[in-house]
C-alpha cells in the first residue's frame, strides 16, 4: 500500500508536467509552506484550484532560469525584497495587470510595472532590556553610540535581514556614513554575531546583552510559546526612528513567472492573497503587517499600536544590498 503510494509518487512526479490538466497553480516558494498553507487551503476550498508547492531557501531562481519556457512554476513567493528584485532583473517574471492588486497594494509595496507585489510587511525593531536599558535607545543610529559599548546583540551580518537594514542605512547616510555606523555597531557588540533573531532575545533575558535588533514577528511567535514567554517579557519593544524617517520595513512578496502556464489561476491566487480575507489571516497566523490598508490587525499588533514606517522605495534599498554585504566583509562584522 505504502510502497504503491511511493511508486505512484515517482511515476506522477515524473509525469507531472505532461499528465496534469486539472485546475491548479504551481508555486516555487522561498517561504516555508507551513506559513502560507492556511491561506492556500482556504483558496483551494473556495475555488477548487489545487495549489502545488516546492519550497527551498536557495536555488529556485536558478531552477526557474534553467527550465526556461518549460518551467511548471506559475508563481514565486519570496521572503524579502532582494529576491523579488533579482527575479525581475533576471527577466524571469512577467508584468501583471490587475486593478484589484493595484487598489489593494500600495504603490510603495509593489513594482511599478507589475512584476512583483508585496504581501506582508515585517518591521526591523529594537529590543531593550526592561531592567538594564529602559528608555536608552530609540533609533538604529544609537546602536553605534558610545553608551552602548559591549551591550548589543545581533545575528550574523550576512543574514538578509541585517543586510536589508544596512542597505537602508546606505540609502540614508551614503556609503561612508553607513560604514561608520556599522563599524560603531560592530564595536558595541557584546558577542560575536550568532544564532537567530530569537536567540538575541534569550541573550537579553539571561543578561548577556542589553539591546538587540530583530524582526517583529519573532516577538509575536515567542509570546505564543509558553517556554519563550519569559524571554519576550524581559524586553521592551521599540519601533525605531519615530522622530524621523520611521522604522525599516521589509516585505514578503510574490511574482508571476514569465512562462506561467496557469496564468488565470495564478492571477486568481495573487488577487486572493491581496484580499482582505487573506491579509487578515496573515496578520493573525504569522503576526505580519498586511500590506493592504484598513485590514484589521491581530490583537497583538494592535497592542503594539500604530507607528511610523520608513516608506523609502524598496527597489532603492535592494540596489544597495551588494554594497552592504561587502561592507560587512570590510568591517569584519562576523569575526
Amino acid at each position, binding site marked *: 500500500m505504502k510502497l504503491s503510494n511511493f511508486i505512484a509518487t515517482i511515476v506522477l512526479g515524473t509525469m507531472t508536467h505532461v499528465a496534469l490538466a486539472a485546475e491548479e497553480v504551481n508555486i516555487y516558494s522561498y517561504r516555508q509552506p507551513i506559513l502560507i498553507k492556511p491561506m492556500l487551503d482556504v483558496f483551494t476550498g473556495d475555488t477548487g484550484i489545487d495549489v502545488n508547492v516546492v519550497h527551498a531557501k536557495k536555488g529556485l531562481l536558478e531552477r526557474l532560469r534553467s527550465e526556461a519556457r518549460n518551467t511548471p512554476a506559475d508563481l514565486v513567493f519570496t521572503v524579502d525584497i532582494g529576491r523579488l528584485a533579482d527575479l525581475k532583473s533576471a527577466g524571469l517574471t512577467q508584468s501583471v495587470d490587475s486593478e484589484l492588486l493595484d487598489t489593494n497594494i500600495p504603490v510603495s509595496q509593489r513594482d511599478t510595472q507589475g512584476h512583483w507585489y508585496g504581501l506582508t510587511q515585517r518591521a526591523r525593531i529594537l529590543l531593550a532590556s526592561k531592567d538594564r536599558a529602559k528608555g536608552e535607545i530609540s533609533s538604529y543610529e544609537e546602536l553605534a553610540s558610545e553608551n552602548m559599548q559591549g551591550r548589543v546583540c545581533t545575528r550574523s551580518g550576512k543574514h538578509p535581514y541585517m543586510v536589508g537594514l544596512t542597505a537602508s542605512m546606505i540609502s540614508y547616510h551614503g556609503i561612508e556614513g553607513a560604514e561608520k555606523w556599522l563599524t560603531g555597531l560592530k564595536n558595541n557588540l557584546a558577542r560575536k554575531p*550568532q544564532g537567530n533573531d530569537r536567540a538575541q532575545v534569550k541573550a537579553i533575558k539571561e543578561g548577556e546583552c542589553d539591546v538587540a535588533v530583530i524582526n517583529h514577528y519573532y516577538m509575536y511567535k515567542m509570546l505564543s510559546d509558553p517556554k519563550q514567554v519569559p524571554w519576550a517579557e524581559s524586553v521592551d519593544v521599540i519601533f525605531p526612528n519615530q522622530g524621523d524617517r520611521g522604522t525599516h520595513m521589509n516585505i514578503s512578496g510574490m511574482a508571476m513567472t514569465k512562462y506561467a502556464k496557469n496564468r488565470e489561476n495564478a492571477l486568481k491566487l495573487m488577487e486572493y492573497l491581496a484580499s482582505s480575507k487573506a491579509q487578515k489571516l496573515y496578520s493573525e497566523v504569522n503576526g505580519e503587517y498586511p500590506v493592504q490598508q484598513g485590514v484589521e490587525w491581530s490583537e497583538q499588533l494592535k497592542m503594539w499600536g500604530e507607528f511610523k514606517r520608513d516608506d523609502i522605495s524598496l527597489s532603492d534599498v535592494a540596489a544597495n544590498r551588494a554594497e552592504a554585504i561587502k561592507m560587512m566583509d570590510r568591517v569584519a562584522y562576523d569575526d
Partner: protein
Amino acid sequence: MTERGAAIPAAPLRKPRFRVDLWQLGSSVFAALALLPVLAILWLALFPEENIWPHLISTSLPGYIQSTLILMLGVGVSVFLTGVSTAWLVTHYEFPLRRQFEWMLLLPLAIPAYVIAYMYTDLLEFAGPIQRSLRGVFGWELARDYWFPNIRSMGGGILMMGLVLYPYVYLLARAAFLEQSPNQFEASRLLGNSQFKSFLKVSLPIARPAIVVGVALALMETLNDFGTIDFFAIKTLTAGLYDVWLGMGNLGGAAQVATTMLTFVILLLSLEYFGRRRQRFYQSGQRFKEKVRIRLPGKQPWWLTIFCAIPVIAGFIVPVGLLINLAIIYFDVSWTSEFRYYALNSLMLSSIAAVVTILIAMLIAYTRRLHAHSRKMLIVSRVASLGYAVPGAVLAVGVIIPFAAWDNWVDSLAREWFGYSTGLILSGTIFAVIFAYVVRFLAVSIGSIESSLSKVSESMDMAARTLGYSRRQVLTRFHLPLIKGGILTAGMVVFVDSMKELPATLILRPFNFETLATHVYQFASDELIGESALGSLFIVLAGLVPVIFLSRTISRSNLVRPTRPRD
C-alpha cells in the same frame, strides 16, 4: 563454487582482435555523467556577473581559507585519534561491554552534524541549563562575571564534527583490523616489540589505506558542512560561497569559490591515493583465524570501557537524550498524519540511491582493478568522485543546468518535428534527486570498495582467469563474497548520508514532495528547534537501522567461516 571441482572448463581460444571493452566503456560513461554537474559549475565560474575576486582577496578570502584549514586539521586529528583508538581497542582487547561497544561506537554516524550542534548549544550556551545552574550556585549574574568556554566557536565546531564524523574512521579502521592476519602482529610481539609498538609498526601501517579513506571522507563532509558552521558563525569557504551566491546574487562568483574548494578535495583525493600507492597488502586465506583478544589484569579493563564510552555518550546519548526531551515537550505540534509517509519517502529515496551508487561504484572499482596499471582508469575513478567536493546546494544547480538543457532540447525537437511539447522530462522529478545523491556520494562508495578490493590478492584473479572464468564471474564469484563487508559499509554510508541530505533535495524535488529532512527543515529554518525535534529524532532512528544491521553483519562475518578459495 562446488561445480568448479567437477570440471575445469578449458579456456576458449580467442583471436586477438580489436573490441570495445564494455567494462571500461561503462565506467567512463558513468564517470562522465557524474562529472556533468561539476562541469556545469566550472562553466558558471567562467561567466560571473561581476568579478568578485579583488573584493574577496582583499577582505574575507584569506580568512575563509584559514578557518577552513584549521577546521579540517582539527577535525582530521580528532576523528583519527578517536576512530583508530576505539577500533583498535574493540578488536584487540577484552573488556566489559566490548561487544556492545562494537556497534554502539557507530551510533553517532546517524546524527546530522547540525542537529548535534543545535543540541549542544541548547545545553551549553549562556542561557542553557548548565550555565544557568552555575550562575545560581556561584551567584554570578552576567556573562562578564565569569569564564565559560563558548560552544559557538572554532573549537566547538571541531568538537561537534569530530563527534559525529569519527565513525567513518572507526568503521573502516575496524574492518581493516579485523581483516588483518594476526600472524604479522604475533611475529612482531615475538621479536620483542611491545603491544603499542607492534600496533604502531605493524597494524597501523597495514590499515593505513582504510584509515586514510576514512579520514578523507570525514574531511570532505567537513568541507561540505553548512548547517553547523553557519550556526556557529565559523567563516569557512562554504560560508563564503553562500555569501557570494545569495547575498551578492553572484552565482558565477560562488561557482569560483566552489572551484577553490574543488582544489581542496583534489588535494584530499591525491593524499588518499599517495597514501595507498606504495602499499599493497593482500588478504590471504589465514585472515579469518579467530582473534585472541588481550585481557588486562585487575580492574584495568574498566578503563577501556570508560574510554570507549566517552565518544558514545558525547556523540550519541547526550544529544539524543536532549532531542527526546524536546520531542516530548513539542509532541502534540509535531505528530501529524503525514509523518510516516515522509519517513517512507526518505527511506525509499535513500535505499534506491544506495543501491544505484553501489552498483556504479563496483563497476568503476572493479574495472580499475582489471586495468591496474592504466592511468586512464585512475582518472575515471577520481573524476567520478569529484561530486563529493561540491556543496549540496551548488551541486543541485549543477544538476539542474544539464537536465533542463536536455529537457529543453528534447522539447524543442519534439515541437519542431511533431508540433508537440514534451515539457520537462527529467527536471523536477525524483530521478533528478536520486541522480544528485549518486553524484554526491559516489566518492564514498568508490573509496570504500576500492579499499576492500585492494586487499584481495591479484594472484587470485589470475588463477581464476587461468581456470577460464570470465571477468564478470571473477567479480561475482570471488570478489563479492570477500568484499561484502566493504560493500555493506559503502551502502550504509550512502544510505545514511542521503537520509540527511537537505539542500539538493530541497532544490530538485517535485511539487508537494517532502522527505523527513525537508519536513524538519521547514521548522528548523524558522528557528523552531523544538518543533523540529521529533522529525530529527526520526532521521536519527532511521539512520540507526542500517548502522546496527551493518555492525551485526561485520561481527557475524568475523565468526562464521567465510567462503574462500580452496587450498
